[in-house]
């Protein structure tokens, strides 16, 4: 998407949900520009060499509309200008017809249609950009909200290596102060300090990655790696709530194109929801995270043993502001859905057996 676009004040959260399906990425399919050029050539030939009593140049609007799919704003303007030039050139090649009254009217109609179409296309384009920007801001807010929920357990995760570092540092001082100094023990303590320092900084790096606000970065990603990162971030939370985690990750999962941070946010959301559902129930405390290759797609499931879902509510779960949790905002799953759909994927919920819920999302391996 071209350039940053400000979010219009009138753009409410409600409209974002319906709008996320708009194309946000330019296609790189080379057939599209070729097709547009061919179409323009056909219209030019028809306009120049046939004697139809219609405003042939009006059909150039189709070329302009096509160009929106693969051009930036400036490109669309150039394409529209090119179409106008072709219209005028055609008139010069057939001066007799062009000079007629209907010829002049056809040319004027054609140019007016091209200009109007280009203006409308550009307007839609900038509205799409605004929606996209709003969506990415919402995603960011969602990430920050999840991190808020995780603050206590992240503090715990950092405090563990810190406590170990302080203890090892004190032990080291003690070994060095001994008569004679015990260098072997001191060295051992310092090695542990280095290890714990690295462990703490890895936790901070994970948190930083999630709080950074950036627009979608589509790269080749490993779904299993995303699952492992999300589980590492929520490790403290899972431990505190004494939840047994089982991971079954498929080995044959190919890399696919996506935004690692956004998908991690989806995972984190589903895991934290599962923790809450388990806490609301009184049954066993189990969570399973599964990745599977299914044909030309990868499916990820988060299966909990919690309170489960009301049967007739499965569809509404992903609507903005719908929540079954006391004190819930109802944004987490809506954001998750918008992220998965921006990846051309699908997310849904179903009942788990014998209790609990399964949240599942599927991402295509090949994306157009």
């Amino acid at each position, binding site marked *: 998407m071209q350039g940053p676009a400000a979010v219009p004040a009138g753009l409410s959260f409600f409209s974002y949900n319906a709008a996320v399906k708009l194309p946000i990425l330019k296609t790189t399919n080379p057939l599209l520009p070729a097709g547009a050029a061919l179409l323009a050539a056909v219209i030019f030939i028809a306009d120049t060499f046939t004697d139809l009593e219609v405003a042939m140049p009006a059909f150039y609007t189709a070329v302009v509309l096509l160009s929106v799919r693969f051009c930036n704003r400036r490109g669309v303007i150039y394409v529209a200008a090119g179409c106008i030039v072709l219209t005028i050139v055609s008139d010069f090649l057939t001066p007799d017809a062009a000079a007629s009254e209907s010829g002049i009217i056809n040319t004027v109609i054609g140019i007016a249609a091209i200009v109007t179409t280009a203006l409308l296309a550009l307007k839609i384009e900038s509205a799409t950009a605004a929606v996209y920007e709003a969506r990415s801001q919402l995603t960011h807010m969602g990430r920050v909200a999840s991190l808020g929920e995780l603050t*206590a357990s992240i*503090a*715990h995760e950092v*405090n*563990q*290596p*810190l*406590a*170990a*570092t*302080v*203890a*090892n540092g*004190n*032990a*080291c001082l*003690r*070994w060095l102060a001994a008569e004679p100094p015990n260098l072997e*023990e001191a060295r*051992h*303590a310092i090695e*542990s300090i280095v*290890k*714990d320092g690295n*462990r703490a900084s890895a936790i901070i790096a994970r948190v930083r990655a999630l709080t950074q606000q950036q627009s979608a970065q589509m790269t080749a990603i490993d779904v299993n790696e995303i699952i492992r990162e999300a589980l590492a971030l929520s490790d403290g939370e899972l*431990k*505190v709530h*004494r939840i*047994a985690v089982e991971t079954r990750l498929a080995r044959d999962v190919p890399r696919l194109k996506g935004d690692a941070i956004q998908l991690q946010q989806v995972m984190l959301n589903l895991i934290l929801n599962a923790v809450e559902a388990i806490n609301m129930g009184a049954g066993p405390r189990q969570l399973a995270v599964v990745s599977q290759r299914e044909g030309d797609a990868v499916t990820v499931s988060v299966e909990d043993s919690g309170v489960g879902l009301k049967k007739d509510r499965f569809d509404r779960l992903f609507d903005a502001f719908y929540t079954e949790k006391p004190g819930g905002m109802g944004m987490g799953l809506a954001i998750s859905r918008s992220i998965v759909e921006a990846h051309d994927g699908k997310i849904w919920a179903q009942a788990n057996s014998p209790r609990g819920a399964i949240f599942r999302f599927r991402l295509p391996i090949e994306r157009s």
Partner: protein
Amino acid sequence: MTIKPSIAVVEDDESLREATVGLLRAHGFIAKGFASPNEFLGSNRIRITSCLIADMRMPEMSGLALYGQLVAQGTPIPTIIITAYPEDAVRSRALAAGVTAYLAKPFSEQELLDSIDVAARRGSPSGLKH
């Protein structure tokens, strides 16, 4: 004669467990680490342990529950709870239950040694050995 008490460290985080055991050994204590409450309960070290340092939040059983279990089975050990989630309510509950000290991670060397000192006094009725 000064007898340094034998200390058990029950902590599921391996690196913190080893660091704590190392620090205690540097101070001349006999210290042994256990990865879980059940590992400690199943060991034959309960009778010879004069001070227990236990993490509050562990998967099977909290440090406080471990202390309660030891009291219930008639083998109480002076216990120091360490936690990365210090909470006033839990502190009051722990101290009321008879725990010697409730330390927030990261704890200082001095507060740990002071707490062990208090535990040693509580453990031996004469209270003067250490």
